[in-house]
């Protein structure tokens, strides 16, 4: 502990003025690097040291790096292992270190002097903390006045100044992270907008096919498409990419674009899926795959030719009220090149065919309120007789208040207008 004489020597007014100036400078700072240099110079001058350096722990926590420096021999950018030297000890122990004579201190690392050509005699080093953890340290070298040794009042002062610097650095990092988050958020919104434009625009009623897509996050790994062809025939598909987030969204964008492009020339659903599968297999990474049901509806005959690549079974609600599932006969797209996709010919006969992603049936699963396929079947029966667009909206409304674990997509092909 310092004795009364030493404490009495402290220039409290000067120290408080410095602390106020420094805090103000940090608050207004645009460039943290130059602010730290200024703060360090003020601290070194006020405490009266020949040189000083400011160190931060690097991202991994194994090293400390010099980010600001005052004195004759700059060492900015110098990296030291965190388990070496006085700075490392101050950071590790989260405590002020005072070394009156480095010749007698086993922790002193010669590396810094070797690097700078400076000769260190005495050291005062204080950690910079944020939320009880040291994020770095301020080190002062060789006291100019008195006997050349740092005293305890210097240590108290440096500790206070280092704390202010630590808080400023932590704030600056938080502000930078916030800016980065904002940038990512804007980019995600832009990606979501581009994705929404990949989906078909709603068509005015009466139109036999209707779909809706609700992303669980900003971007979606699901998609659907509806493509009117000549002679009252319609291509339609619904796909679900494995996983969630940006990687799923990118594969969704690729698959949706490929579908739109290939479906114009390849009318037969099984051939369309074969071509899509081979294209996706060529560039698929990390085991990602796409489940997809694709069909061709002929509004003249009411028939659907359907091919299913590992997707949830489409559900036929027949005009007599009966329900039939059509389970996939082939695995998803993007896994095995050369896969073939058997077709089912389904006579809608005045009924409706529903396709959905598992995001619909699994919504609310976390809270035990999931609709499940049984719930979907009940809903479909209850909504019979309403226009197709209304039915789709009502089904989505049923689950939209639940927690969406996954993207949700629903599409219905209605043959009612033809017969009705």
């Amino acid at each position, binding site marked *: 502990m310092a004795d009364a004489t030493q404490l009495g020597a402290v220039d409290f007014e000067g120290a408080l003025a410095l602390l106020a100036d420094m805090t103000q400078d940090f608050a207004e700072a645009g460039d943290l690097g130059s602010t730290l240099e200024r703060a360090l110079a003020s601290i070194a001058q006020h405490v009266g040291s020949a040189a000083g350096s400011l160190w931060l722990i690097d991202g991994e926590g194994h090293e400390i790096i010099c980010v600001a420096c005052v004195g004759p021999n700059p060492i900015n950018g110098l990296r030291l292992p965190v388990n070496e030297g006085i700075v490392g000890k101050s950071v590790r122990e989260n405590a002020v270190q005072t070394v009156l004579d480095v010749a007698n201190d086993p922790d002193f690392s010669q590396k810094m002097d070797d690097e700078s050509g400076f000769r260190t005699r005495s050291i005062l080093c204080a950690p910079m903390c944020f939320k009880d953890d040291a994020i770095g340290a301020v080190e002062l070298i060789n006291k100019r006045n008195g006997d050349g040794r740092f005293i305890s009042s210097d240590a108290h002062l440096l500790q206070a100044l280092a704390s202010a610097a630590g808080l400023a650095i932590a704030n600056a990092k938080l502000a930078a992270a916030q800016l980065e988050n904002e940038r990512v958020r804007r980019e995600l919104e832009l990606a979501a907008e581009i994705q929404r434009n990949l989906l078909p625009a709603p068509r005015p009623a009466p139109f036999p096919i209707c779909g809706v897509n609700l992303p669980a996050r900003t971007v979606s790994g699901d998609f659907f498409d509806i493509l009117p062809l000549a002679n009252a025939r319609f291509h339609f598909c619904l796909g*679900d990419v*494995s*996983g*969630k987030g940006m990687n799923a969204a990118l594969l969704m964008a690729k698959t949706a674009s490929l579908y739109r492009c290939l479906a114009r020339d390849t009318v037969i659903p099984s051939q369309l899926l074969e071509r899509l599968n081979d294209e996706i297999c060529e560039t698929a990474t*990390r*085991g*990602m*795959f796409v*489940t997809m049901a694709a069909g061709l509806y002929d509004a003249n005959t009411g028939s659907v030719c359907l091919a299913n690549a*590992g*997707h*949830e*079974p489409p559900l036929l609600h027949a005009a007599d009220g009966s329900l039939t599932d059509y*389970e*996939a*006969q*082939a*695995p*998803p797209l993007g*896994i*095995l090149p050369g896969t073939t996709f058997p077709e089912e010919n389904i006579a809608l006969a005045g009924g409706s065919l529903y396709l959905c992603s598992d995001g619909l049936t699994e919504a609310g699963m976390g809270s035990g309120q999931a609709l499940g396929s049984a719930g979907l079947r009940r809903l479909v029966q209850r909504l019979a007789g309403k226009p197709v667009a209304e039915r789709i909206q009502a089904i989505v409304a049923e689950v939209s208040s639940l927690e969406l674990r*996954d993207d949700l997509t629903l599409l219905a092909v209605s043959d009612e207008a033809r017969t009705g």
Partner: protein
Amino acid sequence: MEHSVREEGGALVASFSGEIDLEHSPAARQVLLDCVGQGKKVLVDLSGVGYIDSSGVASLVEAFQRAKKGGLEFALVAVNDGPRRVLELARLDKVFTIHDTLVDGL
């Protein structure tokens, strides 16, 4: 999710338990790829897994594809009803070799 890897009868047996979902699939992926990287037959014991989502299935698919490329055997064993239904509905039973028990796989 928990996992363990052991060698048995010349094969690496990677056992998982819990849920292989979006949160845990990166860890499962690493375990499986490390196994395949050792150049041995790999059996994935799913007897302790109650739920697997599409990201978890993708981890299995990637390891399967890597094994296939290296000419290595890769199979799933002891798959519970829930995950088995997920695999069957997506017709991934046509992709993966699935054995009822570990002994069958060995």
